[in-house]
């Protein structure tokens, strides 16, 4: 009897431990009746802004309240396929980067908004930044409603620009030639002309300015060509002349310590830079030409999507769209996080107009310069660019070897994909 009791206790404690885990770490299930479970990758200061936004919405006493669930980006993206596949605990609303939508649709991970849009006439093209809106549709259906359009532009040190490039900002377009001229002067004083920051936006922006296309048939990559070679040559030329920050240097640190003239970075970094003592302004990303119509500013967009549900609850989905409709006219909190909301309504807001990043939306020409690189296999391209980054610019490999490997990697990965 005693043995049986001990055995029972062991087994019970084992299963209880699993049960208690559930109690203390409850999985937020999407089937909670009157709650919209909203997953997003905002875990930093932008996560606080999103939580405030959700709280504000919940204060309006909607029938379905929104529950904000922030996950780290990598964790969230690895969970999405498995959770949709499991058909359990799927969130009612999800934020993904716009470049993921095509891939997700082709893999059957998303439901579209079309059956519900007739009842939400304000969620339409005329109310959103076109580039963000257009990329949320695929194969004639709407899969994404844009939250924002976030851009890599350029921060500049006011004092250093005055000293080394006094006329570069006259037209609010800083060309590579102007950067080079400024850098040649500034390097004599030990000041870096241009920070080499996140490679992907810098590469893609210049590639597009030179007329490069990531694909010609929508599937196979087109990455090893004269245009991409030219991009690398431009950056390598600047690097070799020590116009740019050097291998191992932290471009942000240089900028924050008044040792760098131009610093290309995302608009989302603004709140962090504001905390420093550096006196700075913002402008467009580095351009080849000073023609405003040829400007390209690399952008991406966080989009609200509906992950595929085995049985979609109509009432809850409509409640979800009510939330999106509310966000459209209440995005100021998101702008305070340093972002540019994708809704055009924000451009009328006085407080928003005073924000540094607002010029990208309030000016029509600027708005047209925002470019989302929505190649279906962007993920493979991004992985390569992020891993090998400036290796050819720093001279660790030749330009031809870099591009050859880039092309082959993306092509082989595309070919190895699972198809229907």
């Amino acid at each position, binding site marked *: 009897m005693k*043995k049986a009791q001990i*055995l029972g206790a*062991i*087994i019970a404690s*084992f299963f209880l431990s699993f049960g208690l885990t559930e109690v203390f770490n409850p999985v937020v299930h999407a089937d909670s009746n009157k709650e919209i479970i909203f997953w997003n990758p905002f875990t930093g200061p932008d996560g606080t802004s999103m939580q405030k936004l959700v709280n504000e919405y919940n204060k309006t006493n909607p029938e379905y309240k929104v529950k904000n669930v922030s996950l780290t980006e*990598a964790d969230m*993206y*690895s969970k999405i*396929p*498995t959770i*949709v*596949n499991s058909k359990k605990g799927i969130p009612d609303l999800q934020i993904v980067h716009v470049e993921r939508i095509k*891939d997700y649709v082709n*893999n*059957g*991970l998303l439901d579209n908004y079309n059956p519900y849009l007739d009842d939400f006439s304000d969620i339409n093209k005329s109310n959103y930044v076109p580039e963000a809106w257009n990329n949320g549709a695929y194969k004639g259906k709407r899969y994404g409603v844009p939250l924002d359009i976030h851009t890599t532009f350029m921060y500049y040190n006011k004092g250093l620009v005055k000293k080394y490039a006094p006329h570069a900002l006259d037209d609010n377009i800083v060309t590579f030639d102007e950067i080079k001229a400024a850098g040649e002067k500034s390097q004599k004083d030990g000041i870096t002309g241009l920070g080499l920051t996140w490679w992907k936006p810098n590469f893609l922006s210049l590639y597009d300015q030179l007329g490069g296309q990531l694909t010609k048939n929508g599937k196979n990559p087109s990455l090893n060509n004269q245009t991409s070679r030219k991009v690398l040559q431009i950056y390598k030329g600047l690097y070799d002349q020590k116009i740019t920050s050097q*291998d*191992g*240097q*932290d471009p942000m*640190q240089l900028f924050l310590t008044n040792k760098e003239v131009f610093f290309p970075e995302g608009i989302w970094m603004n709140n962090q830079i504001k905390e420093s003592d550096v006196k700075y302004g913002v402008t467009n990303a580095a351009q080849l030409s000073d023609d405003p119509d040829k400007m390209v500013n690399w952008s991406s967009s966080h989009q609200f999507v509906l992950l595929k549900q085995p049985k979609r609850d109509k009432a809850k989905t409509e409640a979800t769209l009510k939330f999106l409709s509310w966000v459209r006219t209440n995005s100021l909190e998101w702008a305070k996080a340093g972002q540019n909301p994708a809704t055009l309504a924000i451009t009328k807001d006085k407080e928003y107009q005073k924000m540094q990043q607002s010029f990208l939306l309030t000016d029509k020409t600027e708005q047209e310069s925002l470019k989302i690189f929505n190649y279906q*296999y*962007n*993920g*493979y391209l*991004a*992985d390569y660019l*992020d*891993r*090998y*980054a400036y*290796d050819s610019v*720093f001279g*660790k*490999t030749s330009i031809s070897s870099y591009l050859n*490997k880039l092309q*082959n*990697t993306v092509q*082989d*990965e595309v070919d*190895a*994909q*699972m198809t229907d």
Partner: protein
Amino acid sequence: MVDISSKSGNVSTNRKKTWHLHGKSFPILYLLPHLIVFTIFFLIPLIFGIYIAFTKWDLVRTPVFVGWDNFKTLLFSHSIFHDQLTSGLWHTILFVLISVPFCILVPLLLAVVLNTKPIFAKFFQGLFYLPSLFSISAVVIVWSLIFNPNYGPLNTLFHLDQVWTGTQPWAWMTIVILTVWWTIGGNMIIYQAALNGIPQDYYEAADIDGASRWKKFIHITLPSIRGQLLFTIVTTTIAQFNIYGQPLMMTNGGPNGSTTVLMMNVQQNAFGSGQSLAGISSAMAVILGICITIVSMVQLFLLRNKD
């Protein structure tokens, strides 16, 4: 009466058998929690992982069985996956070859020194063990600050201008140093326990024979802790074959992919930004698993106790 006694005799025998069975099976029941966890979190994923290596799968749709295709691609094709396997495996082996001797010798040396009971022995024992308690992220943050080319103490103190993680062989050196520092504790504790178990008589006898410290170390200490050495060599080798966090966070696989180890390719192919290539990725992991098994068996064979 006879029948009754005979029946009661049978009942008694059956009871004994039942309790006897309980007696034998009872320890197994104690293992049940472990066996359940082992089955759920190790055995089933292992079998499923091997199965996935023979499929094409994107983590969403039903896996499609493709036979040996993934292995043929990895081993014999001219694709990027073949390059990933060969270079990733080579970098992994290179790391194992460089790091394992240090991960064995440094803790052994420290354990021998601590075994002489120097002043503050316990303090130093704690100090050396401390890094083992840190997460890999914390360890990498500490060492990346030390090796930082702009404001790191190494360059500042010695007036150097070296980009440690951006050039070879320094990139490997940074990874090996932080790995050794991180993993000293575990092996050191094992060696200390083993050294404590060596009878002092051996050393006293050697002293009478006039043996030097070196001779005593070679002829008494090492043979006495042979079992522990074998154990740590095998486990350390297996652990270092699974290297992932150090190059990912310290060098991001660079410069030019020269510190990209196989586990990084396994992870990126399965959980990268594009559609998952879980089949290829799993096949890479299976090949790595086979390599680890072979190396461990060779080590066990070479270091077996011939007595």
